[in-house]
C-alpha cells in the first residue's frame, strides 16, 4: 500500500516536472525565430529539442504510471 502511494506520488511529481521542462523546450525552439546567426539557430534548435524530448519522456512515463496505478 505504502509502495503504491510512493509510486503515485513520484508519478504526479514527474508529470508536473515533465510539463515544465517541455515548456522550456518549446520556448527555446520558438527563440530560433529571434536568432540571427546560423550557428545560433542550430544551437537553439538542438537545445530546444533535447529539452522537449526530456519533458515529453517524463510526462508520458508519468501518465502511463498514473493510468495504470492511479485508479487502483
Amino acid at each position: 500500500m505504502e509502495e503504491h502511494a510512493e509510486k503515485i506520488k513520484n508519478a504526479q511529481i514527474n508529470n508536473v516536472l515533465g510539463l515544465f521542462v517541455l515548456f522550456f523546450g518549446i520556448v527555446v525552439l520558438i527563440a530560433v525565430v529571434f536568432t540571427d546567426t546560423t550557428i545560433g539557430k542550430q544551437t537553439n534548435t538542438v537545445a530546444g529539442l533535447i529539452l522537449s524530448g526530456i519533458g515529453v519522456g517524463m510526462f508520458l512515463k508519468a501518465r502511463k504510471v498514473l493510468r495504470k496505478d492511479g485508479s487502483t
Partner: protein
Amino acid sequence: MLHGIDYFIVVAYMAGMLGLGFYFKKFVSSSTDYFLGGRSMPFWAIAMSVVVSDIGALDFVGVSGQAYRFGISPANFDWIGSVPAMLLAAFIFVPYFWKAGIFTIPEYLGRRYNSKVRTLASLTWIIFFAFNLGVLFWASAVFLEAIMGWPVWLSILLTAGVVGIYTFFGGITAVVMTDVVQMIIMFVGGFTLVFLAFYHVGGWDAMVQKITAMGPEYKNHFELIQPTDTPTPFPWTGILFGLTFVMANAYMIGNQTVVQRCLTAKNEWHAKMSMVMAAFLKMFIPVLVLFPGLVAIVMLPDLDDGDKALPLMIKEFLPPGLIGLMFSAFFAGLMSSLDSMLNSTATLWTKDIYQPYIKKDGTDHHYLMVGKIVTAIILLFGIATAPVSSSFPGIYVAIQTFLSFFQGPIFALLFLGIFWKRATQWGGLAGLVIGIFSSAILHIFSDQFFTIQDPFLYVSWWSFVVGLVVTIVVSLLTTPYKDDKLMGLVYRLAERTKKAELQGGTNA
C-alpha cells in the same frame, strides 16, 4: 544584452519554481515529509539533486573565475576529489546512515559519541550554512550586476523570495524535485555554452595554442597537477592530502546538505545508488564550469576580475533564448544551493537543538512548524549578511576557507566512528573541539605556516590529522561503549560480533 524572449524565459522559470513549490505543499503533512520527503525518493532524483546542489552558483561563477586565473587545476575538485569520495560514501557510510533512520549527521555523531558532540557539530554547521547563504547571495549579485547591471539588493531579494517560498512550503521534496528540473536546464544550457565557446575559439587545440602563446604566466594553465611552489591555491600536495583524503570525503560524507538527500531514499539500495549515479554525473561538471573560463582567457583577455568571465561569455556568445536559459541555469544553481542550506539548517536546528533542548514533547505538527519558521529566519539572516563576502578576493576560495575550519575534524570523527569501535565519547568530543581550534590557529597564522596563498587545503588536512590523533589518544585513555550500544553504527560490527560468537562456540 538580454532579448525579450530571454526575459520571458527567466520570468517563466522563476514563476514555475514558485508554482512547483506551492504544488509540492500537498506532499508535506509531517516533519518526516518536510525534512526527509517521507523517505520515498527515487535514486535518480536524489543523484541529480546532490550534483546540482553541489555545482551551485559558486561553481558557475567562482570556478570559471578560477579557470580564468589558474587554468584547469580546479577540475581536481571533481575528478580527483568528489568522485572517489562519493563512491566511498555510497558503499560504506550512506547505508549505515540510512539504516540508522537519522535525520542529520550530527544525530549520528550523537549516537556514536555523545550529545555534546552532536550539539557542537550541529551548531557549527548551522553557523556555517547561515553565513554561506550570504556568500551565495553575493555570487548572484556579481553575476547579475555583470550581465544586466541590476542593483545588488534587487537580485538578492528576488532570489531569496523565490527560493524562500518554495522551500518554506514544499520542504525537501520541493528541494530535490526542483533540483531535477534545475539540473536538466543547467546541463543543457552549460553544454550549449561550452559548444559555442569552442566554436568561436576554434576548438580545444586552438585554445591551448593561443593561451600558451600569451606568456610564461600561462605555462601551467593546462597542468592538472601543480607543483608544490605553485602560485595557485592548488599544489599537488594540498590536492592529495587536503582535498582527496579530507575535504572531498568530509563534504560528501559529513555534509548535511548532501547526506540528507540520501536519507530521503525509499530504501537502502536507492540510497546507495543515488551516490553512484551522482558520482557519474559529477565527472561532467568540470567540462561545464571550467571550459568557459578557459575560453574567456582568449576571447576576453583583459578582465579585472575572473569571476566576471562566465557572465560575459554568456552575454557575448549565446543566441537569444539560450541566454535566458543559461541565465535560468545560473539561477538554478544558485537556488539549488540556497534551498539545500535552508532546509538542512531547519533540519539541524529542529532535530538537534530544538527537540532535545527546548521542547522535547512537542507534537509532530509543532516540529513541522518550527522547521518552517527556522527556514524563514535563516533566509532573512542570509540576506542581511550577504555584503560580508564582498571582502574576500575570490568567492569560491572564501567558501572553501569557511569549510576547511571544521570539515577536517568532523570527518575525523565520522571516519573513526564508523571504522574504529574503540573510539570513545570523550575522544570524539576532544578531537572535534581541538580540531576546530587548530583550524582557526592555522588560518590566522597561515603566513607563518604555509608559503602559498589561500592554503585552505592544507588547513583541512592538518586539522583532520589533529582531530584524528586527539580522538585516538583520548579514546585510548577513556572507557569505550559496549558493543550493543554501537550496533548499526560501526562498520560490520554485527557481522564481526556474530563471527566471534560462532568462533567462541566452536572453540568451546
